[in-house]
């Protein structure tokens, strides 16, 4: 299970050469978004998503670099980044498990699914496995309530999740994934 990392933990003095932090591919993707909006900071969320897609999460160093590129303050961008639950300001595992715990999935047993995941991976909500393979998060109703309970692993939706589905996705309970 990962340690909680304070929001401002690293690279506090990187400021001056911040934009050099972003790759050419990242900057090109951000600039493509800027092309159809009236001002640069309007693409703040797109830019955070682009960087996160490349790196898995948005570090302080990246946050400052994005803010510099969008001509906005790092503080303002931090306010945006921390508002959205799918912008990660801490490292996450290689795959993020988004477990729906809204009403229809709750009726049909999402608590057991959560127990099944925790039993296999040794993590609760907001935690990452020691081997950095998985992070488990709760998520808003995933819009597949006729197939409840559901969850996403990375970009893939999994429906009618039960112990068999969990076993095929994550291995046996108390298996090799257990630290």
């Amino acid at each position, binding site marked *: 299970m990962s340690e909680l990392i304070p929001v401002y933990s690293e690279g506090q003095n990187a400021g001056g050469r911040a934009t050099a932090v972003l790759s050419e591919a990242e900057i090109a993707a951000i600039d493509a978004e800027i092309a*159809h*909006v*009236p001002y640069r*900071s*309007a*693409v*703040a*969320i*797109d830019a*955070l*998503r682009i960087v996160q897609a490349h790196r898995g999460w948005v570090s302080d160093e990246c946050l400052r670099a994005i803010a510099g590129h969008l001509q906005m303050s790092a503080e303002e961008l931090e*306010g*945006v980044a921390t*508002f*959205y*639950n*799918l*912008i990660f300001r801490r490292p996450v595992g290689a795959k993020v498990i*988004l477990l729906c*715990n*809204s*009403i*229809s999935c*709750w*009726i*049909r047993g999402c608590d057991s699914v959560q127990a099944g995941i925790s039993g296999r991976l040794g993590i609760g909500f907001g935690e990452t496995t020691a081997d950095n393979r998985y992070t488990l998060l709760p*998520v*808003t*109703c*995933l*819009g*597949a*309530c*006729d*197939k*409840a309970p559901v969850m*996403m692993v990375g*970009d893939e*939706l999994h429906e009618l999740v039960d112990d068999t589905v969990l076993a095929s996705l994550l291995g046996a309970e108390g298996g090799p994934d257990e630290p």
Partner: protein
Amino acid sequence: MSPDRSGLERPLTRNVRPDREPTDLAAYEANGGYRALRKVMGNMSPGDCLQVIKDSNLRGRGGAGFPTGMKWSFVPMEDATGTTGRPGHKYLICNADEMEPGTFKDRLLLECDPHQLIEGMIIAAYTIQADIAYIFIRAEYVRAARLLREAIAACRESGYLGDNILGSGYSLQMHVHASAGRYICGEETALISSLEGKRANPRAKPPFPQVSGLWGRPTIVNNVETLCNVHHIIEHGAEWFQSLGLTEDAGTKLYGVSGRVKRPGCWELPMGTPVREIIEEYAGGMEDGYRLRGFLPGGGSTDFLVEEHLDLAMDYGTIGKAGSRMGTGTMIILDDRTCPVAFVKNLTEFFARESCGFCTPCRDGLPWTAQVLDDIENGRGRMDDLETLARQVEFIGAIGNTHCALAPGAMEPVQSALKYFREDFVRHIESGACPWCAGEAVT
């Protein structure tokens, strides 16, 4: 459901294949797709289109049910024919941020027939003379976002999008914006804040987005299902659309049922189909061993209805008169083996988590309500907690005490649970435990 080969009885799902694979441009065109757009671009002024939509009595399918034609009519148009707007951009936004608990209808439309949405959007944008359109889609709808981007690219190639659409002189650019989470983004002014790259705090109204929306410009925000209706209405006419509904509300509706029913699912049916028919015929009735105690008619922020309401028509007016809202039209069933207190606690915890934090009744009131419900559920409740809940319902639930409709919506299941399931709250408090958790015989 009998097959509807003409597509005239169930227009929205006519291209939905049994395997749920998407309908591509060629298949969409082969089934009459973009015919309505050709009709508009050849023969109809924006004013003509607006009149047809107004006459059709199409109402917003995102939950509030506001008349779509009236909403569009508030967008400033420079002259009476509506062919030119004020200088500067106007925007059309499709709200594809489906997150209402228990709602799973827009995903079907987005994944199975992306071109239906795009055609509706082009006609809607033309009607208000918008030059830029956005599809604001929740982050988790990865497949739908990819399909939409591919469909938009195909439309550009075919001259349905971009400059000078079908030689009409009208131009429209369309973009997909993938969001980054948070339920509040579905609120139309919060959605606009989010699309501007900001925190998704809702805005005070007025000014209404129709006049001052995205980047201060006239903006229309419509739900996916609403926009999917548009080209059918243009093609077949307002009278045809009105004739589809069984009651005073027009068209068809995507109805859904989730919970302990035999066949949970989502079906396009005539507007005004009775609740009982949807639950018993389409959803196959309750699972064996489960009895219906109540249902939320249209998502997590609608009031409970109970058995006596099963024969009501699912339309805006009828469900409204019964003390609830049709909302998104996707029902969530409360069965007798599920604790109503825990049910409402789950919903309230959801809304507390999803509060944007801007106004106090929502930011502080919802966690407080959730805490009281948690106390009752876990045997720590006192009788005066019921009065606390009633006070919270009255205060937080009053439109005007909060900045947007999130917290009042959150209070709807709480207040109606107190009304219909009060004895269950009392049993929790008197016995100091949840009867369902304790495994007692229930109701």
